[in-house]
């Protein structure tokens, strides 16, 4: 691969490694190769190897090890996607799985081959560093960053700055528990769910027009879902890293280590109270503020320069070609309605490629599909892709003139399901089919729902509706923030499902409320159907599911679901 030198004048639309960035990742591969060798030869115990492999993304799962690879803030080049495709073919079973944190997982790698996989990744400027373990994880952001209206500032450079700061941070590699940071630059729509992260950052401008961050702390899902609390209304950008250091240092010292279910920062913030927690952070920050880790304009400019706008053509806002195809092709029009969204540059659109075909685990993608999408990205979208926390992909910069042709090509690979943001765009964890932690299966529930609700007109009529299914209370599929959330629970060795409604991941963040007693797997599709019936009967014009629920409350839904004699 051609690696742009930091001083080169080559224009890039995503961050490219400097010689030092590359060296750090290469050295990490060699370090892990040696650790794996020692483990396999018996020199390193299971217990000692555990944190080392976790911090390189390797879990040991129900059937085989699982390798989680970081896709920093969900941004991927076509070349990197081809490498992931190659890895899935050569080292795995020809497919991979996108997660709800914009990462990708390989379900069947061989432990002894993982160092080679990491070396393959390093060759395209990727890694699996800190994708697991009690450390700072991959930073996530809005998959439409940089291309949509309503953005205060582009979050991607800040995510990259955080990536570098968090990578191999010597002080915070053995935290009480994992630590997740998300950034949004959009004040209208939060597509990064920042209020459900250990730290959430919202870019904003103050009255003087200066850039900074609204900082949330202590949000999260899992066993104890909590909406983050504002700890700083406006943190000037220069202080980002010193302030993060201060928060992490307070957490590292005071977070509970005696009970892993009470070890996340959200529990600490609740226990201390936000005022005391903030006082600790401010006191710590006094020592760090304006110190050498204070960001410089030069550094922010350097990183920002990597995220140049691609070479857009001057196009008219309206596309005749597009309008003609929309009028003549119902299938294309359906897809356009759901999967295409607006773009700040005239004549362009952003396209969601949903990985939610009925019968396939949500977020799963085959090697052939990866190759195909890589080719489409090259042909139609400047060779860049995004991964969303809904486990889909986005081609962010497609000419409206090309949409019909792109749709046809996606269709041929079963990648044009017109369900972005609809009920069947299910967010789902691997569940009991793959995961050690799960109480219940989640993929068959997703499939059963997708099968029951096949009628597109019905789905489009329902409109925006998020459905999240987690196989256990660790909540990898974020069931608390689905408009409809489903949680697998274990009742005396049998799989049951708890239903909740009213969750939202956006700026209007809310947690779903549990309807009542849990139900069997066979009953789930019917329960969803009853919820939807209540909504359709009660909604006002143009009112989405969430708004209807907020207006009429839980009771009508609850009564219908548990009504007998249907």
């Amino acid at each position: 691969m051609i690696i742009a030198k930091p001083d080169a004048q080559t224009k890039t639309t995503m961050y490219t490694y400097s010689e030092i960035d590359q060296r750090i990742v290469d050295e990490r591969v060699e370090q892990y190769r040696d650790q794996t060798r020692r483990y396999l030869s018996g020199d390193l115990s299971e217990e000692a190897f555990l944190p080392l492999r976790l911090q390189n993304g390797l879990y040991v799962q129900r059937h085989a090890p699982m390798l989680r690879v970081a896709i920093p803030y969900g941004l991927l080049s076509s070349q990197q996607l081809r490498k992931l495709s190659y890895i899935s073919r050569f080292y795995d079973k020809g497919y991979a799985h996108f997660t709800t944190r914009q990462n990708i997982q390989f379900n069947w790698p061989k432990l002894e081959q993982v160092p080679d996989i990491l070396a393959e990744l390093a060759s395209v400027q990727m890694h699996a560093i800190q994708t697991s373990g009690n450390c700072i994880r991959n930073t996530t952001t809005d998959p439409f960053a940089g291309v949509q209206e309503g953005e205060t500032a582009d979050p991607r450079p800040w995510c990259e700055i955080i990536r570098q700061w968090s990578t191999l941070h010597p002080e915070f590699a053995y935290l009480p528990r994992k630590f997740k940071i998300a950034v949004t630059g959009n004040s209208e729509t939060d597509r990064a769910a920042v209020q459900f992260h250990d730290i959430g950052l919202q870019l904003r401008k103050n009255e003087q027009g200066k850039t900074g961050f609204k900082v949330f702390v202590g949000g999260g899902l899992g066993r104890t879902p909590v909406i983050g609390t504002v700890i700083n209304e406006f943190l000037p950008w220069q202080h980002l890293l010193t302030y993060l250091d201060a928060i992490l240092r307070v957490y590292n010292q005071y977070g509970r280590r005696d009970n892993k279910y009470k070890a996340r920062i959200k529990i600490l913030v609740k226990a201390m109270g936000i005022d005391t927690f903030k006082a600790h952070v401010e006191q710590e920050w006094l020592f760090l503020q304006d110190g050498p880790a204070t960001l410089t304009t030069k550094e922010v400019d350097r990183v920002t320069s990597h995220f140049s706008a691609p070479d857009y053509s001057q196009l008219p806002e309206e596309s005749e070609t597009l309008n003609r195809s929309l009028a003549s092709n119902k299938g294309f029009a359906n897809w356009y309605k759901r999967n295409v969204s607006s773009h700040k540059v005239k004549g362009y659109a952003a396209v969601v490629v949903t990985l939610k075909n009925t019968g396939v685990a949500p977020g799963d993608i085959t090697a052939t599909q990866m190759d195909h999408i890589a080719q489409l990205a090259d042909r139609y979208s400047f060779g860049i892709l995004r991964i969303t926390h809904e486990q889909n992909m986005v081609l962010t910069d497609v000419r409206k003139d090309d949409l019909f042709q792109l749709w046809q090509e996606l269709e041929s690979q079963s990648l044009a399901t017109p369900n972005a943001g609809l009920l069947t765009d299910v967010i789902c964890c691997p569940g009991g089919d793959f995961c050690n932690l799960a109480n219940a299966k989640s993929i068959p529930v997703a499939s059963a729902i997708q099968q029951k609700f096949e009628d597109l007109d019905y789905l489009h009529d329902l409109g925006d509706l998020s459905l999240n299914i987690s196989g256990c209370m660790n909540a990898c599929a974020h069931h608390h923030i689905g408009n409809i959330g489903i949680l697998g629970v274990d009742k005396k060795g049998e799989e049951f499902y708890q239903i909740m409604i009213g969750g939202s991941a956006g700026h209007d963040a809310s947690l779903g409320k549990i309807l009542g007693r849990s139900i069997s797997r066979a009953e789930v599709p019917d329960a969803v159907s009853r919820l939807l019936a209540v909504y359709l009967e009660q909604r006002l014009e143009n009112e989405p599911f969430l708004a209807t629920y907020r207006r009429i409350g839980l009771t009508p839904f609850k009564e219908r679901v548990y009504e007998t004699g249907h």
Partner: protein
Amino acid sequence: MKQAIELTTEAQFSWAIAPSEQKAPFQENTLVSPEQLTSVNKEDRWKLGLITSADTPIDSVGELVKDVPVVAINFHAFTDGRGFTLARLLRERLDFTGKIIATGQFLPDQVHYFARCGFSGFVLPDQESVDTSRTSLNAFSEAYQISWDRPEPLFRRM
């Protein structure tokens, strides 16, 4: 200020650790607990070292470390990351310039991070761990963040 890193096996370690029930006076080159050190006359403390656990709040030893040339941070579990913060605070906040030694349950593979946080000595169970630790120390030639060994972040050094 970077110090030379010393890796020793338990057998070679030149300091004795005082049993918790022992009372002053202590022999030279003995590591004593904060309570034990408090009972020693200030002018005699320079011959001793302080040993404290990784979960010790910095404020509780802030005064004591001024009188000793060595602080040993003892780990009950390698997962206890508080020791990293404690070492940085000793170095960067209290300007402790003596030796900081890691003892107890930690992994040779963690030594790289420890050294970056200000540790300058490691007591390891055997020669094999010493060799592994040496490899760990040299695993990385660069780092992004500020730390005790690099007072400036990479972006200010580029």
